Structures are given as C-alpha cells and as structure tokens.
C-alpha cells in the first residue's frame, strides 16, 4: 500500500481517450473513402434507368412488344419458305422417283422389245428351220423322183436290152433264158430293193413329217408360253402402272393438303400480322397522342405563365387564338380565331403566346406529329387556359 503512486490511478485523464476517439473516427472516414470507389462504380450501371420517362416507357414498351411480336411473326412467316423448299425437294424427289420409274419402264419396255425381238428372231429362226425342213423334204422328194426316173430309164434300158437280148438271142438260147430268168430274179430283187428303198424313203418322210409336227407343236407351245409370259408381263406392268398412278394420286393429294395447310398458315399469319400491325398502330397512335398531349401541356403551361390577364376581364370571357409554329417551335403567326369581343383581351392572349415562344419541345416530337402540331388553337379563359 505504501508503494501506491502519488497520482491516483482512478483519476483517468481525458487526453488519451480523446486521442483514441479522434483516431477511431479518422480511421473510419479513411476506410469509407478507400472502399468507396469500388462501391460507387456499381451504381453507375443503374444510372441508365434514370433518364427514361416513366409514362413514356410503358408506351414504348407496348410498341416494342408489338414490334417484337411482329418480328416474331416475321420470323415465323419466314420459315414457311423452308417448307416450300421442302415441298420442292419432295416434288423433286417425286420427280426423280417418277423419272426413275419412267427409266425403269423404259428399261422394261426395252427389255420387252428385246424379248420381242428375240422372240421374233426365234420365230424367224423357227420359220427358217421349217423352211429348211421343207426344203430338205422337197429335196428328198426330188431325189426320189430322180431316182425313180433313173430307175425307169434303167428299166427301160434293161427292157430294151432284154428285148434286144431276146431278139438277138431269140433263136433259143435257153441258157440265156435262164440267165434272163436270173436276170429277172435280180431285177425282182432290185425291184424289191427299190421297194424297200421307197418304203424307207416314205418312212423317213413320215419321220421327218412327224419331226416337223413335233417341232411345230413345240413351237406353238413356246409361242403360247411366250404369249402367257407376255400376258403376265403386261399384267404386271399394268399393276405397276396402277400403283404408280395411285402413288402419284396420293402425292398429289398430299401436296394439295400441304398447299392448303400452307395457305391456311399464311392466312393466319397474315391475320396475326394485321392484328399486330393494328395493335402497333394503336400503340403508336397512343404514344403519339401521349407525346402530343405532353407537348400541348407544356405549351399550355408556358402560355399560362406568360399570360397577363388584363384587368377588368370577366371570368366567362373567352378568346381562341390560332397559332402557327415553325419547324423549330418558333411562333410564325398568331391570329384570333374567335374573338372575345374585347380587343385588349385578345391582344393579351396573343402577347402571351408570343412571350411563351419558342416551343423548342416541338423538335423532340416525331416528325409526323410535328406536322400535326404545327398549327393549333388555344382557347383563353381567365383562370383556365385551354
């Protein structure tokens, strides 16, 4: 306790606390200044919003919406060409298919022609073969006839010889008779031989005829078969033709349907476009109306502020002043459209308009609106400017 310092420790001075407090505040201020630039940079982006009119925004929005809709519609109306191209592709494909079918048909026709030509050739060959057979048989007959003629000649010669022998050896030559007998026998034998030959010949002829008959029959059979084949071929072709026709019919129907669909869509899109256009026109008109109204309001307020109502003018007096504006909003001319009867009152109204001019807000309006607003009437009544 004796060691206690002379100065009382509980009597805290104010110097150090003050220094600490001031340091604390300065530190906080510096910290806020250092961190601020990064924080204030962010609100920058939101400052774009500040410049827009709240009332106008809704209208522009609507117009934009309409524009967007139309853009969307335009975008949607653009795709139809694609279906068109698709249809064209389809048509092209169909054409190609038809062409292929035609080619196939041509090929079939060619094949049929070839087959016909072959059949013709076959038939020709057959006819040739027949003719040859006939020729052969004729030749055979001719040969036979020649042989017979030669035989008869030979017979005649032998008769003559025998006559001669008989005449020459008439006196009796029995040996010769015997010889002659032998000769006769030989002749008879030759005769038999000839007969056999003739028979063989006939047999051959019959056989040839039968052969020819068989050939003819085979030919007829082949002919029938060919005809049947040709018939089947024709039937198949007819069927294919019918099939093709059905397909072409279906294709035509599909195309017609697609066409109708396209037309319906186009009509619908056109209607929607029209509706959108109307909506846009309405929105634009509304916007224009809004702009015009705001302009009129500005003009009204300016004129109202500039108007010094002459003393002694009654509350129910009214004058209408026609105002014509230049392109930049300056007043070109003012004229009294309907007088109040008091010339001082009319003059004060005209002076008010001239005082309030120029209305440079006119330049902010769209050009078509500007033309409409270049000339307007202002009705002046004390206490209320119209």
């Amino acid at each position: 306790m004796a060691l206690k310092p002379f100065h009382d420790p509980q009597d805290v001075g104010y110097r150090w606390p003050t220094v600490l407090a001031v340091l604390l505040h300065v530190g906080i201020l510096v910290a806020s200044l250092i961190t601020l630039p990064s924080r204030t940079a962010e609100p920058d982006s939101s400052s774009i919003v500040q410049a827009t009119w709240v009332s106008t925004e809704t209208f522009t929005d609507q117009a934009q919406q309409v524009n967007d809709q139309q853009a969307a519609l335009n975008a949607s109306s653009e795709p139809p060409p694609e279906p068109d191209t698709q249809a064209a592709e389809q048509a092209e494909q169909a054409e190609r298919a038809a062409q292929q079918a035609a080619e196939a048909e041509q090929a079939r026709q060619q094949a049929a022609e070839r087959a016909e030509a072959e059949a013709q050739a076959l038939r020709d060959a057959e006819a040739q073969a027949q003719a040859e057979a006939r020729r052969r048989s004729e030749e055979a007959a001719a040969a036979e006839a020649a042989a017979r003629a030669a035989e008869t000649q030979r017979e005649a010669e032998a008769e003559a010889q025998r006559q001669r022998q008989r005449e020459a050896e008439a006196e009796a030559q029995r040996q010769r008779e015997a010889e002659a007998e032998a000769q006769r026998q030989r002749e008879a034998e030759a005769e038999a031989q000839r007969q056999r030959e003739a028979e063989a010949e006939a047999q051959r002829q019959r056989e040839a005829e039968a052969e020819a008959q068989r050939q003819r029959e085979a030919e007829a059979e082949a002919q029938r078969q060919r005809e049947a084949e040709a018939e089947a071929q024709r039937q198949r072709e007819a069927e294919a033709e019918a099939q093709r026709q059905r397909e072409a019919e279906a294709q035509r129907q599909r195309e017609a349907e697609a066409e109708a669909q396209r037309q319906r869509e186009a009509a619908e899109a056109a209607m929607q476009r029209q509706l959108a256009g109307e909506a846009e026109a309405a929105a634009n008109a509304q916007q224009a109306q809004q702009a015009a109204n705001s302009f009129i309001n500005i003009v009204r307020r300016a004129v109202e502020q500039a108007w010094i109502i002459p003393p002694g003018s009654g509350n129910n007096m009214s004058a209408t002043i026609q105002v014509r504006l230049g392109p930049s909003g300056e007043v070109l001319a003012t004229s009294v459209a309907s007088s109040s009867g008091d010339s001082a009152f009319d003059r004060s109204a005209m002076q008010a308009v001239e005082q309030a001019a120029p209305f440079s807000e006119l330049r902010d309006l769209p050009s078509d609106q500007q033309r409409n607003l270049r000339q307007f009437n202002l009705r002046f009544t004390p206490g209320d400017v119209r």
Partner: protein
Amino acid sequence: MNDNTMSIPHLIMSASTVVQLVMLILVIGSILSWVIIFQRGIALRRAKQEYNQFEETFWSGVDLNELYREIPADEPRHGAEHIFQVGFREFNRLAAKTRQADTVLAGVQRSMRVAWSREEERLTQHLVVLATVASVSPYIGLFGTVWGIMGSFQSLSLTQQATLATVAPWIAEALIATAMGLFAAIPAVIFYNRYANMSARLLGKYENFAEEFHAILHRNLQGRDATPPAR
C-alpha cells in the same frame, strides 16, 4: 462524374446547411461518446482492480489500525478504501468522545453512506452523456434526413422531369444523416449498458464491504462495552 457526385464526402459537402449542421452535431456527439467510452472503460477497470487488491489486503488479517495508518491522509482514496478510511476515521473520533455504541455506529454508518454516495457519483460520472448520445442521436439524424428529403422534394417540384438522377443525390445525402446518427448511437447504447452494469456491480460490492466493516466495528464496540464492567 457520377461516382464523384455520389461519393460520401461530395454528398456531405453539397448538402444543405441544416443537414450539414446536423451532421456536425452528430460527429461531435460520436466523438464525445467515444471519448467517454474509452475514459470510463479505463477508469472502471482500474476501480475493479483496486477493489480486488484492497479486499485481499483487508481480509488478509492485518490490523485495522495499521491499515488505516498506511493510507496517507492527505491523499484522496477511492472505492472501498475510501469508505474504510472515512468510516474508520469517524469511528476513532467518535469512540474517543462517547462511550455509547449506538451513537458511534450511527455516526460511522452515516459517514460511510456519504462516502459510498460519493463513490457512486464518481463511478457513474459521464455515463449520462453516453445515455444522452445513445438516445438522442438517432432522432437528430432522422431530423437531418427529413429535412434533406423535404429539400429534395422542393427541388423536385422545380424540375420539369422527375428522374431518379435528380432525386437520388438529395435522398442519399439525407440518408447519410440517419446513418451518422445510428453510427453514433449504437456504440453509445452498447457501452452505456455495459458500464452501467459494471458500476452497479462495483457499487454493490462497496455496499457489501461497508456492511461488513460496520459489522466488524459493531463487534468491536460490543466487546468494549462488555470489558469496562470487567475492569
């Protein structure tokens, strides 16, 4: 340009005079409250340390006369030490004059109560300022904000087009006043509660010590009353 106009120093500089005045008051209040916060914080901590030290010494079985003599009379003491000094001095003086124990004890109690009350005053010193700053600065800031918003609306009526750009700086600078008010008020409230609680607890300890000391003196007097008949 935009971030320049929206920076806090720029906003403060471009604010209207009333709002600037409000801000100045709030800054002063804030600095004041922080000075008191630091000063009271140090003082209360020291008082607590001293009390703990003294209590340890007091209950260590040391002779009370010795303890009293160790405290220099010319040097003012604080806390429990002060109460002990005053009480013991009064006891010594009264015990020399009268033999009536009740009179002595009443005098001792009174003087100790006076000392306790001085200690209370010393401990809760300036805490009122803290309470005032805590409760008033939000209202002052709010007043600045209302004033600034009024100004912003007045300027708004003069402009043809009401855009955010024309309103935003006004509102921002108006809101800075509220922010400063809250900035001053929040620490003041927190530390006021903390220090009020600390001083109340310390005063409770002083009171307990005074009662205990009073009981010791009372025991002492009872013993002295009992001894004279024995002498």
